[in-house]
């Protein structure tokens, strides 16, 4: 059973093709790594899947709904964490969570319990009334991830969630990802870190708008005759 089915998705900006006719499927509960160099079209593809960007052509079914005709339903079922931190800087940790939880119509009592659960898990309980502008980047990223999970989405889209954070926070972040995946949430993640790519169950590599490869990290290494994902990546990016 696939929860993401992408068929011939294309996005052109004028004469420039950012995403060129890509097709792939992602299984429910899978951690799917979406790799590619800067400008390969990862963010554009992700934004189309989240309903933030209109595709030029092609279709997709996200969480069982059609991207073109049922985008409202899709939005209820997905969580999204943008490349750029985009929670409100001038609200506190708790205010941000309450705001987004409310927009997703999580019942009040239930929402408070979930927020408390997340904050305890993140060890941020005693900082819950701190303005987000004053907390370190690592906390911000974990907060953004937890906020994206508040309404119990079926799929979470993470756009370079760990760029710029230190290795310890990255490890903590990945344990959060595993935990969510274990609860059945599908994780769709873009990253630049090749070690992170090997944490994924399956990965794909995009270059210049094309989807070059897709498979488990081990399969792909054997298929291309390389030892590390790093080599795999450079192979496509340099071509």
């Amino acid at each position, binding site marked *: 059973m696939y929860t993401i089915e992408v068929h011939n998705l294309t996005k052109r900006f004028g004469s420039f093709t950012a995403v060129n006719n890509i097709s792939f499927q992602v299984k429910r509960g899978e951690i799917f790594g979406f790799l590619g160099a800067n400008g390969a079209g990862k963010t554009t593809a992700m*934004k189309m899947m*989240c*309903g*933030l*960007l*209109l595709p030029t052509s092609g279709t997709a079914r996200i969480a069982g709904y059609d991207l073109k005709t049922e985008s*409202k339903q899709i*939005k*209820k079922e*997905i969580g*999204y964490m*943008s490349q*750029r*931190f*985009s*929670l*409100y*800087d*001038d*609200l506190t940790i708790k*205010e941000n969570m*309450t*705001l*987004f939880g*409310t*927009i*997703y*119509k999580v019942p*009040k009592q239930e929402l408070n319990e979930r927020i408390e659960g997340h904050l305890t898990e993140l060890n941020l309980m005693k900082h819950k009334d701190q*303005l987000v502008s004053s907390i370190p980047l690592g906390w911000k990223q974990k907060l953004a991830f937890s906020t994206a999970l508040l309404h119990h989405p079926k799929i979470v889209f993470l756009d370079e969630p760990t760029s710029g954070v230190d290795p310890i926070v990255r490890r903590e972040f990945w344990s959060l990802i595993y935990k969510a995946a274990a609860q059945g949430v599908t994780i769709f993640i873009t990253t630049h870190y090749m070690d992170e790519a090997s944490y994924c169950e399956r990965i794909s590599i995009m270059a210049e708008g094309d989807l070059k490869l897709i498979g488990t990290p081990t399969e792909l290494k054997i298929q291309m005759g390389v030892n590390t994902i790093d080599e795999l990546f450079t192979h496509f990016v340099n071509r």
Partner: protein
Amino acid sequence: MRIILMLIKKEFLQVFRNRLLISILIVAPLVQFLIFPFTADYEIKHISIAFWDQDHSTLSREIIEHFRHSSHFIDCGFIDSEAEKEEALLHDHVDFILQFPPHFEKQMVRGEESQIAITANAINSVKAGIGSDYIKNVLTGFFESKEEGTPPSIKKMTSISINHIHWYNEKMNYQNIMVPGILVILVTLIGSYVTALNIVREKEIGTIEQINVTPILKWQFLVGKMIPFWILGMLEFIVGLILMVFFFGISIQGSTTTLLGATAIYLLVMLGLGFFISFVSKNQLQAMFIVFFLFVIYVLLSGLFTPTEGMPEWAKWINFANPMSFYMDIIKLVILKGAGLREIASQVLILSGMAVGINIAALLSYSDKIN
């Protein structure tokens, strides 16, 4: 409903944490009210005048004395030649020169025609115009006070006099016009400027993307933005109204409720305009420029500084698209004339139409997708 309440709460939390915005909201009306009404004033108080008496008669001297005793004029003494006259005008030493020709008195007594020449330094046309009026008034007053013994020709001349009575603003107090005008400017700025910048800022820092990825409905987002800024605008208006009544002593002739109701509608127009601008502009700079551009046109055409009646036809047509001119009308009519709802009905209707139109346009221009 819960979502909208949450959005309103969020907006207020942000507004009250934004020190710059808060100080603008508090300081702007105070500064505008404390400076503008005192400086934007068409009344001319200090008119300097020089005399060129070629007659040296009792009559000419009496007239000159009369001017010297008037509080509107500053006496700049006498001049004695054409060269001096030019010099004085050229270097802006005087605004007016009053010239009595030779044999002035003799001619007047004989009932012949004689002329006093008034030369105005018209570099400031307003001063020249109003000053001439003052001078004519003083001359008329002089001859009237001399009723007996006044030659018939002068009597004839003074028998026609123009009396100005300014209705609804009897003392020609410009504050009575400027202060309500500033109220209009305040409400306009809060409504359009602050909202436009607020939303474009969300675009710039990317928070709007996080909102757009949620299942929130467009109108919910708009209403959630609209209500807080509407409340702020109304509060700002009420503060302005209180300042107007208690600090400037301008009482509201009409009904305060009517005034508040009209403001509520006008604010909706301005908020919608702010939304529309924020959705079509890419960054705060663009939004600021568009608002500023519209604002200048609105103010100039609104009738605050110059009467709309004197504008060319095409400007009047443009004014039909200028919500500020309708609101300015309402404010002046209700505050100064005591107009009731019936007298301002057409303006209110037009503003309501504009409010609906611009907000629909805003809703349509708000796309949760980037193209």
